[in-house]
């Protein structure tokens, strides 16, 4: 059958490029492998030349694939399933790009693109390590290329192809029996982007996170190269800027995701120990552990074995996280894992194809990896740094073990699950990790490698220790940190952790002067540690002082022993009614819609009771993408320097599926006539032709009349209603009026004769619009973001310094 209007060329080009990227990455892998193992220099060079060429072709074709997909999505070619399934016409440019990584194929491509960029940088900088390192990287490109291949080998699905046509995906759908199917309504627009991804953080967070993912392969590849070529010295120096880069970018990517969760997903926070979050966190923790042992090795010769192990493991954890989040195994424990895509065997293979050779090579070479017999002094920096790395690693293992429970259950046919206090389950262990790490971060910099003079050590440390004690005592005492939900022990741990976090901040800031003489260039590590300290302080304060402001005073219905746990978190707000919200007044003023009618904005005025300061929060509800009726909430926040007030709609009338069932009743009325309703009566006082009011400005030449109706309720109150009837462009229209207090909607629907007007009246309890709102306060949340930024700055400073030192060494 010849289908009408299909654009097949982009798809054919895409298919070609997919195959090209697979073939070229295979060639690159083989060529670089031969180059690594070649004995003769000439042979090495020629293989390496071929490897470079093939890798460049691969890198370019991956970028082109991405561009073709973007072209398909931005041109709204809905004959392609990817465009049809992930985008629609209403999306602005930024979200059209995010549509690409809504699907698994797009995110694999993003990953492959970054590998391409990293590979090109490595060709320029890796020197003699280029061939073995690029072998590993090229092989990973082969694996990623198969993920988007979409072919069947002996009945086994290999990858999923982003260039499939919609009609190829749904072969039995009846509409594809028609050659002109593209002209049908269901093909005119796509399914749209998942509403929770329609957030600007989702434009920037995935590319950064995938750069972080992609970068973890570099230390891994260097470690493999070291083991493979049995050259245990050298690679740890040249790869140090890379492992610092990886730590920085992975941290940035993860925290951007946290920021997204905080701003968009209404989780009520930036971190929920969700499995999807956990899996990338553990890879980062292990990478940071690796950076520390790597620095130890470069300075002292200790800790090479753990360095190998950490870098191997960090990348393997990235692969494992890819498996966990994409396989569908986390369905019952995560709120935002992908559902399964039928590629589980391939995702598993992706892990094992690196895990087995990586660890086997490590074990085989383990005995040959050099180490120093003499043990470290207790007053040496390397000893405590190593302890810190070990703690980071153990904390990561703890998190990943319990995150993997669904996998454990699958393998051992068990049914374990983390209980109902998911966050506390992790927090109660991680708080001790924070205490130990804070302490180690504070003191380790003051120690020297090999050995430290105890007197100068104590002398230098005494001032920051005292300052930190004062500051943290002040926070503990004045800050009113009294988070006692989990008992006095946990509260005590919070206070101790607060001290160590402040200690880490102050001591490292102090070290920049007392230890480095203010030389900022060399202070990357100190700056990074200051950031880590600030981050911890922010986490501790914002989590333990998080507060629900929208406590519902209208519904004091919750009694009983666990009444404080039973929700009172939602406040019901009737439109226009100022409502008591603890320290604030809240008023639901009005609502408005955006131009696509996708979003409804609710304007909530919040007034502080003690100083009458007002501000407006505008949370909204966004209509879900096609195929999922209903709405999702988008929060709005008011940012202060020391706290955020964060609100979102938990219920609004527009969400109500069962529509208002009350009917309008028609009453013919003449001037002075009376009509009764359930709670009183209404009188048609007079009729005003061509009225001029706040809402209407009719000219004497128009055809418009307004009824002036007075309503007398049995409670003795009197209201006015002014429905309007008019003709515009030869179309009869009428404008309803409502009396919310009486639940009345009144319209003037027709002119019956020259005396009688048709007045329609509806009584309904659902007339008064109301919303349920949740308002939360996060104090000092900005410290979390500030700490993150400072920490990343520290990583980058160290990275820049180390690469400069490398360059100088290379020149010398």
């Amino acid at each position, binding site marked *: 059958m010849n289908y009408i209007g299909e654009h097949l060329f982009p798809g054919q080009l895409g298919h070609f490029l997919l195959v090209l990227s697979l073939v070229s990455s295979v060639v690159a892998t083989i060529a670089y492998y031969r180059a690594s193992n070649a004995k003769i220099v000439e042979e090495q060079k020629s293989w390496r030349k071929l490897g470079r060429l093939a890798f460049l072709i691969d890198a370019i074709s991956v970028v082109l694939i991405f561009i073709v997909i973007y072209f398909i999505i931005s041109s709204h070619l809905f004959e392609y399933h990817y465009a049809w399934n992930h985008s629609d016409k209403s999306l602005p440019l930024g979200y059209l790009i995010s549509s690409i990584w*809504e699907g698994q194929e797009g995110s694999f491509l993003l990953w492959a693109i970054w590998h391409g960029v990293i590979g090109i940088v490595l060709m320029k900088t890796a020197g003699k390590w280029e061939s073995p390192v690029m072998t590993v990287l090229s092989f990973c490109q082969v694996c990623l290329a198969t993920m988007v291949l979409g072919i069947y080998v002996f009945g086994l699905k290999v990858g999923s192809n982003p260039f499939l046509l*919609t009609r190829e*995906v*749904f072969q039995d*759908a009846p*509409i594809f029996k028609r050659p002109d199917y593209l002209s049908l309504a269901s093909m005119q627009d796509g*399914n749209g982007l*998942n509403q929770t991804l329609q957030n600007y953080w989702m434009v920037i967070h995935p590319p950064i996170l995938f750069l972080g993912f992609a970068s973890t392969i570099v230390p891994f590849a260097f470690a493999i190269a070291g083991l493979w070529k049995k050259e245990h010295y050298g690679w740890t120096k040249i790869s140090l800027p890379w492992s610092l880069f990886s730590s920085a970018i992975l941290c940035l990517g993860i925290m951007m995701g946290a920021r997204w969760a905080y701003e968009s997903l209404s989780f*009520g926070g930036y971190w929920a120990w969700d499995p999807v979050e956990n899996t990338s966190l553990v890879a980062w923790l292990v990478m940071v552990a690796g950076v520390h042992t790597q620095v130890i090795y470069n300075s002292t010769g200790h800790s090479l074995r753990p360095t190998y192990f950490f870098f191997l493991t960090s990348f393997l954890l990235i692969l494992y996280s890819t498996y966990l989040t994409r396989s569908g195994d986390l*369905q*019952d*424990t995560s709120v*935002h894992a*992908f*559902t*399964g*895509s039928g590629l589980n065997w391939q995702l598993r293979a992706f892990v094992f194809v690196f895990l087995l050779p990586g660890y086997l090579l490590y074990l085989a070479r383990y005995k040959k990896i050099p180490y120093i017999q003499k*043990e*470290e002094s207790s007053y040496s920096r390397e*000893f405590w740094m*190593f302890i810190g790395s*070990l703690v980071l690693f*153990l904390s990561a293992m703890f998190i990943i*073990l*319990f995150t993997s*429970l669904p996998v454990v259950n699958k393998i051992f046919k068990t*049914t*374990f*699950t*983390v*209980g*109902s*206090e*998911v*966050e506390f389950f992790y927090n109660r*262990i991680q708080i001790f990790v924070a205490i130990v790490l804070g302490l180690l971060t504070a003191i380790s910099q003051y120690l020297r490698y090999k050995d430290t003079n105890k007197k100068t050590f104590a002398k230098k440390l005494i001032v920051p220790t005292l300052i930190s004690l004062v500051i943290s005592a002040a926070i503990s005492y004045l800050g009113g940190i009294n988070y006692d939900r989990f008992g006095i022990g946990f509260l005590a741990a919070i206070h101790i952790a607060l001290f160590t976090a402040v200690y880490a901040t102050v001591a490292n800031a102090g070290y920049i002067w007392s230890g480095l003489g203010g030389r900022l260039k060399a202070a990357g590590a100190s700056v990074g540690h200051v950031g880590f300290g600030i981050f911890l302080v922010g986490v501790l304060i914002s989590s333990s002082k998080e507060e629900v402001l929208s406590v*519902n005073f209208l*519904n004091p*219905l*919750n009694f009983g022993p666990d009444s404080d*746990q039973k*929700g009172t*978190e*939602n*406040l*019901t707000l009737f439109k226009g009614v100022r409502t008591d919200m603890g320290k604030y007044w809240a008023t639901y003023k009005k609502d408005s819609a955006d131009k696509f009618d996708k979003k409804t904005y609710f304007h909530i005025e919040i007034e502080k009771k003690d100083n009458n300061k007002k501000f407006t929060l505008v949370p909204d509800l966004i209509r879900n*993408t*096609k*195929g*999922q*009726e*209903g709405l*999702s*909430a988008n929060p709005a926040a008011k940012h202060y320097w020391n706290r955020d007030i964060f609100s979102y709609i*938990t*219920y609004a009338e527009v969400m109500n599926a069962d529509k208002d069932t009350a009917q309008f009743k028609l009453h013919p009325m003449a001037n002075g006539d009376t009509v009764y309703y359930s709670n009183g009566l209404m009188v048609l006082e007079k009729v005003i032709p061509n009225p001029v009011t706040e809402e209407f400005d009719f000219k004497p030449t128009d055809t418009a009349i307004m009824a002036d109706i007075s309503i007398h309720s049995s409670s003795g109150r009197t209201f006015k209603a002014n429905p309007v009837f008019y003709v515009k462009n030869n179309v009869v229209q009428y404008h309803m009026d409502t009396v919310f207090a009486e639940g009345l909607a009144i319209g003037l629907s027709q002119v019956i004769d020259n005396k009688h007007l048709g007045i329609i009246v509806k009584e309904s*309890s659902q007339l008064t619009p*109301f919303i*349920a709102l*949740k308002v939360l306060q996060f104090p000092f949340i900005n410290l979390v973001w500030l700490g993150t930024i400072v920490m990343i700055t520290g990583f980058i400073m160290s990275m820049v310094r180390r690469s400069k030192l490398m360059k100088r060494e290379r020149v010398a």
Partner: protein
Amino acid sequence: MKKIHIVALVAIAAIIAVLISMMGDLSTYETIASARQKQGQPVTVIAKLDRTVPNPIQYDPARNANFTAFYVVDSLGNKAKVEYHFEKPFDMEKSERIVLKGTMKGDIFEITRKDGILIKCPSKYKDDPKAAQNNLSRN
């Protein structure tokens, strides 16, 4: 013995202690019937909305925005009423599976934590081909 070995031993001991205590706190997935046997204990149940009840979800935010009651049925066909002391989760009507974390009080499953409910919708990330095909042929 080297210091590093002592550290390793301490670390291993700490890990074992932590793991044992944590394992004790793990709960297991229960059915509604077995949850009934464990009155008042925190349990996790996977169920779905009982659509044989005319109005399986009761939520009246005008009266109380902090109370949702709904009826569920598990894979063995056992039924229970659930009381959730928070707002009705978005998209609950369309859920095909609900993970509940709470305690059984008599015949009522009570959830007192906001994150005690995890809703699984068929087209969460739209990777469900069936939902997409229905969507395609519907209009």
